[in-house]
Each structure stands twice: as C-alpha cells, then as structure tokens.
C-alpha cells in the first residue's frame, strides 16, 4: 500500500517511514505543506499521514484544499495539538482520523489499514475472493486455509485488486499504487507479478480485461 507521509521533523519522519515500511507500506515522505498538497493531488496514495505543523503551508490548509478539490484519499492527521477543539477542527476539515503525538507505530499502521479498508467500502477486515483470503493485519494470504508465500509486491498487487473487487484497475493505476518514488519499474513488472499470483493462487482469481487492465470479481458468496 502506498502512503504519503507529510512530516517536517527529520527524526520522526525517518522513524515513521522506516516503521511503516516494516508494516508493509510503501512510504513517500514530503517535508512541507506545498509538496504535500501537490503529491496528494496525484491520487496515487491509498492514504496519507499529515502533520499539521508543516512549513510553507499548514497541514490544515493542505487538507482543506485537497477536500475542496474532491480528493478523497483518506487522511490521518498527526499532530502535537491535543486540545479537543483542535481535534474537532481537524476532523471537520476533512481528516478521517486523528492521532496525537507521540503515536504508537502499530496503532498507526492498524489505523491506516482501517482507513484504506473503509475508503473502499469494505467492512470486513479480511478480504475474500473465492478460496483466497487476505488478512491485512497479519499481512498474510491464505488459499483454502493454507498460508501462501507472496513477495511484498505480489501482496500489494493482490491487496489493491481485492480492495477494488469488481472494478478494473489499469496497469498504470497498479504501478502507481505499488511503487514509491525512486523505485525502478520495468515495463512489464505488473504482468510478471500477475503471472506469479496466478501461479500461486490459481489462474481463475485474476481476470484480464483486454486493453483495459485487471480485475478480481467481487465475491458474491
């Protein structure tokens, strides 16, 4: 899952990036409000972690501008302001969740997973398609109840398709979701990962919509 992190503090920012990476997130880190707004506008992120006290442009403004432009990316606000009015203002400005510093890494990761899940209209914590189950909290995939070893990329790809079950995702959309800045992307990377997923999980799971992209059929069971 690709996450935008907007935090101006070096120590906290590097910690968040490393910690969230440990939890399987691809993290892009910006250090000021202008960059945060610009990156948020790309829509490439499943969620954003936004510090409010950002240089150049306040986090609250970033949030309001993004919402005004109908950018629906779930935003978790991270701030040192813990007064209740500040929290209310943050949530009213369009934040989906609010955490006061210092935060627990595991809690942050769990909240981000929940935000992403809710943003895709999912109420189940585990995503299911046919005989395949993906458990975001455990970062685990089961086929007929048996754990399946997936690479991080394969896992992210499956996660993205399951979250958007029933919808077709183009190759570009998938690439955007999988790779943080500076990663080298081979032109056929997505096809390679799909190939591996089909090999590990059965060929019927992921459907190729010719000329458009890929889809996992919504589980009707």
């Amino acid at each position, binding site marked *: 899952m690709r996450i935008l992190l907007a935090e101006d*503090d*070096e*120590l*906290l920012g590097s*910690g968040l990036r*490393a*910690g969230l990476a440990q939890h399987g997130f691809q993290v892009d880190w910006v250090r*000021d409000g202008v960059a945060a707004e610009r990156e948020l506008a790309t829509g490439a992120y499943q969620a954003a972690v936004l510090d409010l006290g950002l240089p150049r442009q306040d986090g609250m403004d970033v949030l309001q501008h993004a919402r005004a432009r109908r950018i629906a990316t779930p935003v978790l606000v991270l701030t*040192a302001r813990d007064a209740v009015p500040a929290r209310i203002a943050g949530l009213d400005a369009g934040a989906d969740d609010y955490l*006061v510093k210092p935060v627990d890494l595991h809690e942050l990761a769990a909240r981000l997973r929940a935000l992403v899940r809710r943003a895709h209209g999912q109420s189940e914590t585990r995503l299911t398609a046919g005989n395949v189950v993906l458990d975001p909290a455990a970062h685990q995939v089961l086929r007929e109840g048996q754990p399946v070893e997936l690479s991080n990329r394969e896992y992210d790809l499956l996660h993205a398709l399951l979250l958007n079950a029933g919808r077709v995702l183009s190759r570009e959309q998938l690439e955007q979701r999988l790779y943080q800045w500076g990663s080298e992307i081979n032109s056929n990377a997505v096809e390679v990962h799909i190939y591996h997923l089909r090999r590990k999980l059965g060929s019927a799971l992921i459907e190729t919509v010719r000329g458009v992209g890929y889809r996992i059929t919504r589980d009707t069971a």
Partner: protein
Amino acid sequence: MNTPPRAPRSLQTRLLLAVLTLGLVAWASAAVLAWHEAQDEVGDLLDAHLAQTAALLRLQPLDELDEDKLNEAPELDKHQPRVVFQLWHEGQLLARSANAPQEPLTERRKRGFADSVAAGKAWRVFVTQGREKDVLILVGERQSVRDEIVLASLTSMLKPMAWVLPLLALGIWWAVRGSVRPLRRLGQAVAARQPQSLEPLSTAGVPPEVLPLVTALNGLFERTAHLLASEQQFTADAAHELRTPIAGIRMQAQVAQGATQHAERAQALAATVQGCDRATRLVEQLLQLARLDAETASTGAPQTDLAEIARAVAADLQPTAAARGQRVELDLPGPAALPLAEPLARVLLRNLLDNALRYSPEGARVRLQVTPATPGNAAALCVEDSGPGLEPAEIARLGERFFRVLGTGQSGSGLGWSIVQRIARLHGLQVQIDRSPTLGGLRVRIGG
C-alpha cells in the same frame, strides 16, 4: 525574647476612640467652664442677696431687734436660715441672728464684701454701717452653702448631658461603622475570590478615598492575569514542542524493535539517541528561559569580562564545530566588561555561538568578536557567520518562542533566540541583527 508585634488597631476602633475621647474632653472642658461661670453668676446673685438683707436690717430700729423677734422672722427661702447677721457697736455685739457665731464674721470695718474665716468656717460677708454711724452691720453666708447652690445648678444642667453621652457614643460608632463599610466590603470581596479569578473589582459605589486602592488592585489583577496567560501559553508551547522529539524517539525505538536487519536496527537506535539529546537540549533551554522569566530586571548586575567567557564557550563548542568542519575565529583584543552576571553571560554567548554553528553549513566560518569599551563607546560583542543569513521578515520573527527558520534541516528548538533576547532585555542591552559584511551570513551585535 521576641514579643509578638501588636496587631494594629482597626480603623473603626481608632476612629471611635478618637471621636469619643475628643467628645469627652470637650464635655469636661464645657463643665469646667460652666462651673466657673456659674460660680460668678450665682456669687453675684447671692452677694446682692446679702446686700439686700443688710439694707433691710439697716431700716430696722435697733431696739426692735431682740432675739425673739429675730427667731420669728419668716423664712423667705430654704437658704435663708444659712444667712446670718451681727450688729456691732464699738466692739460690742448688739444683736445677732440665732445661727450667727459670737465672734465677728470679719475684721473688715468698711462697707463692702469680704471673704473671711470665723468660728472655723469660711464665710462671705457684707459689711455696712447702720443708721447710727457707729453701728456696724455684718451679713454673712457660709461659703459651703454657696458652693452647694452652684453645684446644684450645675448638676441640673450637666445631668442630661451625661445621659446623652452614651447615646452620642452609640451614634458615632454607628456612623464610623457605616463609613468603613466600603473598606470592609472590599476586603470581603477580595478574600472571597478564587485564586484563579482575576477579573477586576467593581468600582461602582466605591468612595473616592477607596477608589485608588481598588484601581491599584485591579491593575495588579490585570498584570497577574497577563503573566498567568503568558505562562500558560509558554507551558502549552513547551509541551507542544516536546511532543515532536518524544514522538520521534518513540517511533525510532519501535522501528528498532521491529527491525530484522542489523543495519536498520543500528540506524534506528542511533536516531533514538539523537532524539534524546535533542529533547534534553530543549528541556535545558526551557529551564533557562523559565529562570529568566522568573528573574526581575536585574539592577546593578556585576561587570563581567566577556572576552574570558567567550574563550571558554568557544572551547566548549569547538568539538561540535570541528565535527562539521566549521571554524570558530576568536577576535578578543582585550578585556571587555558588560553589566551581566557571569552565568547569564555564558548562557548568552553559548546560545549565540551555538545558533551560528547550527544554522551554518558544513565548513562555515564563525567569528566571535568582543570589543572592549572605548571612550564614548560601551563594550560590545558580535557573532557573525558565513551561513545563508536571514531574510528581513525572518529577522523580525526571531525571538518569538519556538520560531524556527524552516527548511534548515536543523533540529533546533527555536528557543535560543528567545533566551538571548530575554537576557539582553533584562540587562538593558541592545541586540542588532543584520547581514555580515565580511562573512556574508548572519551578524548579531550586542552592546550596552
């Protein structure tokens, strides 16, 4: 042995005592005056009475004045029996009233009044000649009787006043009590206050004598409220400012916990330690600032040689500078005294130099110059660097608590400047910030 200080009397008691004492003294003086006046008046009256009696005796033929008749004389008033008379002829007592002594009432022979002593008693006597020139008429009255009369008239006059006196005291007590009521009410209003309540006292209905007190109190409340608000703001800011390094430390520690690679864990632990150092520095600065805030403007601070302290501070920070390839140049031509207490001078210089090093790039030059006083010029110190310097807008915001120039990649707290400016202000020193003409970065000059 210490005797406890006597509690001052209340205003009410003081006023009451003063007014009552004065009233009593006035009353007593009036009584004494009245006594003298009454003595004079009553004396004249009684004297006239004596003279009149003498005149009546003179009209009386001598032979009719036998003792029986005298005893039958009608009593004209209750005092009359005290009036006595004697008729003398050539040293012989011709006649006398029954209550008169045998001896002469007075030795006076001429017509007129006399005060005398006869038969062991004090008398007031009127002397006159009879119809026959050689007969002497003495009409007397006991002094004690006269005094009794005076006293009786005085008593009848003063008795109602004695009754009025307690009523007067009560009235005064009531009036005084009413007059000090605004003071008492003010005291109660202040005493009943919650410690946090600092809104002004109402000045409605406050008499002009008490108004300055209420105004002064309100001024005090206002200043205290202001101080309290700024303290609360500072605490909130400080807490806010401490959250970020603590959040960083926590996050790095959790990264270290979850790390699977040795390099990743080592990096996270190093960052954790760095975060702790930063938090420590922030706490130290907060404490310095809090101490400065508590300090009142120092009067007569001792003169401290800045050159010596500059050398010590530069030596302290040398390792920090060397680690980033920075060079600290000292320009200390001689002793330079400024009115600063030694510990504060050290804090001031350390913050200035630390800021210059912190916000200058690697390999930068930082110059610390202390100029001794010359005739007409006070001593001054100057710190300049070859860093990026500051825009005028940023210079204007320097010294706001926790203001930090952004995008420097430095983990400063934004408190160093607050401390420098606070120390300078406390000691009446001028702080000038501009661009260094020689090094190109920031230049800070502090002088008397």
